[in-house]
């Protein structure tokens, strides 16, 4: 295989290069493909380093519509994804596998907005005559599960909802499309997911930026995630494969320094570039404060990013160091909140049956912020909507919530319960904290419905805050101003433990209950049926 593809890649890259060299970065003609890779590195305030790999493959000329188009002729575009695309007539597909908790306050917005813990999958599919959307959704889930070695098969109707306002379709088309969204917070990401992921890249992990994807290091990062974004554009289909990781050089250096380099972070350097790539760049954001040295030196453009072109600077090991600081001093958090909103989502109460779902949104800016709030809760949790309270520093402010739409979970034909979805638009007043709290109660399940580790509990998926800009909603969040929300934000997941029955002795319970019932039944009928007699006792 290896030699085959390499040879393949070589001859092909030659051609593609010639194309690009002639028409430099003008999108090639119909049914052309181009592949770009990009690594963006952001040193963060708390000494951590956020790295974002983006591998973009553009497939020009729209394939995803007509089902049996020239599938085998892909050269750069991964074949397997192409088939999935066609078979389930996907218009848009987003799959992310993350682990860790994205710290918005210190790290700011992620470069790829979908950072919800666990697996998240949402897709817009055309509603074809051949098969309904839900059949396609099932097929898609299983296909992806097989492709990425993730247990996406369990993203079944118990987790699936269709919040089309939260995840709007990115383009308009004549065919009716349907959205399916599901998330699995307990899913973890590991090497077995990265392996097939890398295999989708034209150069695999042998050349180009993908060289740096060293599982032992990626999965040691404080936060790491894989993402596949597939969307049809007017000109064709765009596939974005992304890897995000937030490293902590301070931890790696034993709590001392925040210097970083490819060698330190990935334990590898880039030896040669991927020839088939049209462009392959490494961008480093320069922190505006602190005296640091960046090597190899590079030109810094106006928005403080240093650029390296892998095509020309092939063996590359970028490193950044702060020679003048002996040990890294952590900045105090209070003055530095990088996002306009700070989110807190917790479960209150200590009882196992009843509690409060509590969300605190702190507006760090000086303008009111209008955000949409979306919960997609599995049926183990019942929201009690009539107990909803919105408070700003202790006083009821019910006018701050609007467009509440709530859909309780319902029993589906296959016996499973669909999740309950709650969606509303919240207005967070300037520089104050909004408390939204609802009472919840936890379901009592049959003992067969509990997972093997029942005493651990269940992970509740993260809630999503999304910018509201649909004119249909009347109001529009102020994205244009800096105070507005730029992108989706995910709250942390929650662990909720349900009251558990006893797993060891179902038989005893059945026996005891039946015994008691028969005892009473028997004695009553005994009384009712037998006749009374008077016997004389001789003494």
């Amino acid at each position, binding site marked *: 295989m290896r030699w085959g593809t390499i040879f393949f890649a070589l001859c092909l890259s030659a051609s593609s290069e010639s194309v690009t060299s002639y028409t430099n970065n003008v999108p090639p003609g119909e049914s052309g493909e181009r592949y770009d890779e990009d690594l963006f590195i952001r040193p963060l305030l708390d000494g951590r380093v956020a790295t974002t790999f983006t591998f973009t493959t553009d497939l020009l000329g729209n394939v995803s519509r007509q089902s049996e188009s020239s599938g085998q002729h892909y050269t750069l575009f991964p074949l397997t994804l192409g088939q999935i695309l066609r078979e389930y007539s996907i218009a848009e597909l987003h799959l992310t596998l993350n682990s860790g908790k994205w710290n918005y306050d210190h790290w700011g917005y992620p470069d790829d907005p979908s950072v919800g813990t666990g697996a998240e999958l949402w897709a817009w599919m055309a509603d074809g005559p051949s098969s309904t959307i839900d059949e396609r959704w099932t097929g898609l889930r299983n296909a992806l599960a097989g492709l990425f070695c993730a247990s996406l098969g369990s993203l079944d109707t118990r987790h699936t909802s269709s919040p089309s306002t939260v995840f709007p379709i990115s383009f308009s088309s004549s065919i009716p499309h349907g959205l399916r969204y599901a998330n699995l917070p307990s899913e973890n990401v590991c090497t077995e997911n990265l392996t097939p992921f890398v295999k989708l890249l034209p150069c695999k992990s042998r050349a180009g930026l993908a060289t740096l994807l060293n599982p032992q290091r990626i999965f040691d990062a404080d936060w790491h995630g894989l993402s596949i974004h597939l969307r049809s554009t007017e000109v064709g289909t765009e596939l974005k494969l992304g890897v995000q990781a937030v490293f902590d050089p301070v931890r790696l250096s034993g709590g001392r320094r925040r210097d970083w380099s490819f060698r330190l972070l990935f334990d590898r350097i880039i030896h040669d570039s991927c020839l088939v790539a049209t462009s392959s760049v490494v961008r480093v954001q320069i922190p505006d404060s602190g005296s640091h040295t960046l090597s190899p030196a590079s030109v810094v453009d106006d928005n403080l990013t240093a650029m390296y072109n892998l095509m020309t600077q092939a063996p590359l090991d970028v490193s950044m160091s702060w020679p003048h600081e002996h040990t890294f001093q952590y900045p105090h958090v209070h003055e530095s909140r990088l996002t306009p909103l700070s989110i807190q989502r917790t479960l209150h109460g200590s009882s*196992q049956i009843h509690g409060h779902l509590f969300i605190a949104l702190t507006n760090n800016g000086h303008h009111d912020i209008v955000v949409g709030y979306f919960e997609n809760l599995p049926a183990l949790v019942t929201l009690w909507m009539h107990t909803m309270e919105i408070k700003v520093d202790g006083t009821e402010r019910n006018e701050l919530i609007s467009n509440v739409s709530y859909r309780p979970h319902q029993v589906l034909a296959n016996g499973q319960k669909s999740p309950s979805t709650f969606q509303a638009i919240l207005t967070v007043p300037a520089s104050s904290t909004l408390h939204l709290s609802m009472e919840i109660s936890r379901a009592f399940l*049959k*003992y067969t419905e509990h997972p093997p580790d029942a005493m651990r509990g269940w992970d509740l998926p993260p809630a999503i805050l999304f910018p509201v800009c649909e004119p249909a909603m009347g109001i529009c969040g102020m994205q244009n101003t800096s105070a507005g929300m730029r992108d989706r934000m995910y709250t942390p997941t929650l662990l909720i433990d349900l009251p558990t*029955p006893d797993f060891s002795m179902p038989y005893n319970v059945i026996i005891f209950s039946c015994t008691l019932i028969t005892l009473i039944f028997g004695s009553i009928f005994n*009384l*009712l049926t037998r006749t009374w007699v008077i016997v004389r006792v001789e003494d």
Partner: protein
Amino acid sequence: MESPLFLPTLAACRLLLAWVQLPVLDGLQLDHQLTSPLTSYFRLKEGLWLYHHGVDPYLGGVLKHSPLFLSLFSTVSPGRVAWALSDIVGAWALVRIWHSRQQLGQSRRDGLVGAAYLLNPYILLPSLASSTSTFENAVVLLTLMFAAEGRPSPALLALALSIHLSLSTSLLLVPVLMLLVTSPTSRLASPRPFGGSYWMVFKYASEFVVYWSVLVCAASIMAGGVWNWMHESWGASLILPDLTPNPGLWWYFFTEMFDHFRPFFLMVFSTHLAIYIMPVCIKFQHDALYAAFLLLGILGTFKPYLTLADPGLFLSMFAVFPEIYPYLRHAVVTALLHAHASLLLPLFHALWVIEGRGNANFYYAASLVMGVAGGAGIVDACFAGMRIAIGNGSEAERGKWEVVQQ
């Protein structure tokens, strides 16, 4: 207590209690002993919220009440006064039943009968927890009262209403019909074959069907559909979708039941309830009121989604049948069993879900004790109700003979 003012003062106190704000009461609302999914006011309020926000309240499996509750509570929003009033109405009905059983207007025992209902903790606590079982109990008592006073239409309407509110009350259908065509006075001591005319029974039955179907229509109009609310409110007591713990015997049994046996045992448990109707009614054909009393006892022990209000009704009705007291075999034991159960249930419940150091079996054990207590009550009442027919001979031949069953 003999004073005629006793009852009114008691009622007044109960009304006052409705206005007193105690921090404890909020906790009571969610207590599993006092409210079940079918009767919790908390869920009703959620249903109202959904209803007002244009979501079908019967969608999420949250609301299991009758739609009539929805229409009532969405028009008037009664405070806890409503519960106090319905308690008082229930007590009043009980006293009226007592009167019509004794065929007299006033008696010195009224106070006791009323107190037996108003002061019964099993009745008082659920209504403080504003569980709708209070209303159901009151309606049941009204049914019996009207039936005892020989007013068929009100009785049948009340019966239809109570069956509409909670399906398992349909056990009472037969005895109430019998009671309508016979007299409520105590015939326990002197049994006789059923005297009423079957034609009348049939007539009343058909009248009942009319009322009942009208109520169903009203409910369906309210719910904007027939199936969803029936499935949620009546189906709940048949297929037990919600396994919230309660003092009854169903929930843990079906929590631990294997899935493929579940339907079968659901059928068994439901028919088991119905099995008692005929034998009891035949055996006590001479005293339909007593038959109804016994069936209430059955309900108070074996009902799905049992709450303390159900055994409470049975225990309170003991006050109406003083003639059987001498023949109760183990009244004290039953009382002690109930005392134990009522202490153990909340304690073990807390141990399991609040403190997390005991597991579900603790609470299950407590509910078993509850079951035993209920069973003891029924068996004893059943025994005494028949034993009284033989009575005790004169003083002279005490110890000369024994009464046994063969």
